[in-house]
């Protein structure tokens, strides 16, 4: 217990060599544990640093811009002569693209998950599941390429007056990008439903579809909903697809045919330019980042609560 004071006497004085070795060994063990703890604390430090930096730079921003204007003004033009600082256009762009993405990803992802978990043969599942996991890891900048140069031109054939940069194409591609994520996570949740619950349903004469819809899906619902919520958080925080394909002009609209910047696209746009450190433009990306962080954090927290609180008690 008294390691530190014991060290010097141990090496110099009358204690047996074996005991001395024990003391030294104990000391080393403590040092190692301390170092490992420091590494673990790096996670806390990172969170702290993120919050601190965002708050600090945002504070500078809000010295110039009133919080009232930030939340109520309808224009976002921090880099113009006639500067306006209303976050609404960026939030509108973020929500519109995310909503489109979810409209694509939730139905396809859920149906694919139910199919894989309850209908597909063992072999099919063994092949498809790793492919889905593989697709979750595809870098998002690549999807930006698809949105701008593949999907938008395709959409323009159907909707001739669609702009080159538009939220529709970006949202759809973001949705396609998220499908494997939802399918994979929701399938995990459904697989976690114990077999004896399925057997209970089949033993009552239920069909596959009835078992899947009436028993397995309700039993896995918290995991499935958590997958949706985490998918929302991903869509809101997604940067490259929207930065490439949705346009970089802040635009207060929910019309998917139009071009509009999201919060993330704005940050990218400013960072690509050469803004002096400490200028209002520089600070504005941190204020925007703070809003983004609050949005994704809320979704993440809700997702975790849903998963924890309604954890299935089979």
């Amino acid at each position, binding site marked *: 217990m008294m390691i530190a004071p014991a060290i010097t006497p141990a090496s110099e004085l009358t204690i047996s060599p074996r005991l001395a070795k024990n003391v030294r060994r104990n000391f080393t063990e403590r040092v190692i544990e301390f170092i490992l703890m420091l590494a673990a604390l790096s996670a806390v430090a990172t969170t702290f640093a993120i919050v601190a930096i965002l708050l600090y730079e945002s504070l500078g921003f809000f010295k110039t811009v009133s919080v009232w204007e930030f939340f109520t003004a309808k224009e976002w033009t921090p880099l113009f002569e006639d500067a306006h600082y209303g976050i609404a256009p960026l939030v509108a762009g973020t929500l519109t693209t995310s909503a489109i993405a979810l409209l694509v990803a939730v139905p396809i992802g859920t149906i694919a998950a139910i199919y894989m978990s309850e209908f597909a*043969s*063992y072999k099919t599942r063994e092949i498809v599941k790793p492919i889905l996991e593989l697709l979750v890891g595809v870098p998002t900048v690549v999807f930006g390429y698809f949105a701008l140069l593949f999907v938008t031109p395709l959409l323009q054939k159907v909707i001739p007056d669609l702009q080159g940069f538009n939220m529709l194409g970006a949202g759809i591609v973001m949705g396609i990008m998220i499908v494997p994520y939802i399918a994979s996570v929701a399938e995990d949740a459904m697989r976690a439903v*114990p077999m*004896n*619950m*399925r*057997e*209970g*349903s*089949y*033993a*009552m*004469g*239920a*069909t596959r579809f*009835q078992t899947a819809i*009436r*028993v397995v899906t*309700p*039993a896995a619902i918290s995991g499935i909903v958590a997958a949706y919520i985490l998918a929302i958080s991903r869509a809101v925080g997604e940067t490259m697809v929207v930065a490439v394909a949705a346009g970089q002009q802040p635009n207060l609209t929910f019309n998917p045919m139009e071009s509009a910047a999201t919060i993330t696209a704005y940050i990218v746009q400013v960072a690509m330019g050469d803004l002096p450190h400490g200028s209002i433009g520089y600070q504005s990306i941190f204020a925007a980042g703070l809003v983004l962080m609050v949005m994704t954090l809320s979704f993440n927290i809700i997702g975790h609560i849903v998963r924890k609180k309604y954890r*299935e*008690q089979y």
Partner: protein
Amino acid sequence: MDQVSHVTKAESRNLNFYYSNGAHALKGINMPLYENKITALIGPSGCGKSTFLRCFNRMHDLYPGNRYDGQIVMHPDNTNILADGVDPIEVRMRISMVFQKPNPFPKSIYENVAYGLRVRGGKNKKVIDDKVEQALRGAALWDEVKDRLNDLAFNLSGGQQQRLCIARALATDPEIMLFDEPTSALDPIATASIEELMTELRNKLTILVVTHNMQQAARVSDYTAYMYLGDLVEFSKTDDIFIKPKDKRTEDYITGRIG
């Protein structure tokens, strides 16, 4: 008392069963199930008694690669329920099952019991209400849950959950009910109530029960079958099998020499 009728409700004829890994789990089983009687399957673990039970509602069809060979014929319609043309779902609608571990669905008590009716397309609320009440009364659970039918089934105790599963199986008026070690996860008091329930249910339907507990077989069943390594060693009236077993292997098991 039990000499009154010996109507055969179902019988297995030269039934063989193979698991997908090739294991030959049942070897030429011939055995009747008598109507309104309780038949118990006993034997050391791995003897095939659960495998045999699960043939009766084609549970093995849920897993690819399993194979039946032989027949299980139901009376009075003489349907071979293992035949290729017979839909397992149809079999399961006639023969219901209660599992080893209570497995209520993540639904309310009411919806758990109504499940079989809903699966059959039942929509009439009055009819379902009546059936649910009847089934819960039949499972001796009605008085305990009548004021909280909309509670989640998971909130019930283990014994109550198992009686709920019995009510669920009862609600659809099955002809045969299978019990797969129904009390192995329960305490002695809950076990006693389930056993009592089974003896009452005998008046309405035919019961096949797998039990790991010989005393239970002796207490509740009219007929007992002793199985060993996939063979049906002996089948006769429960009293006979426990008092004067014909086969040496049965005697060894009953006297505790094989376990």
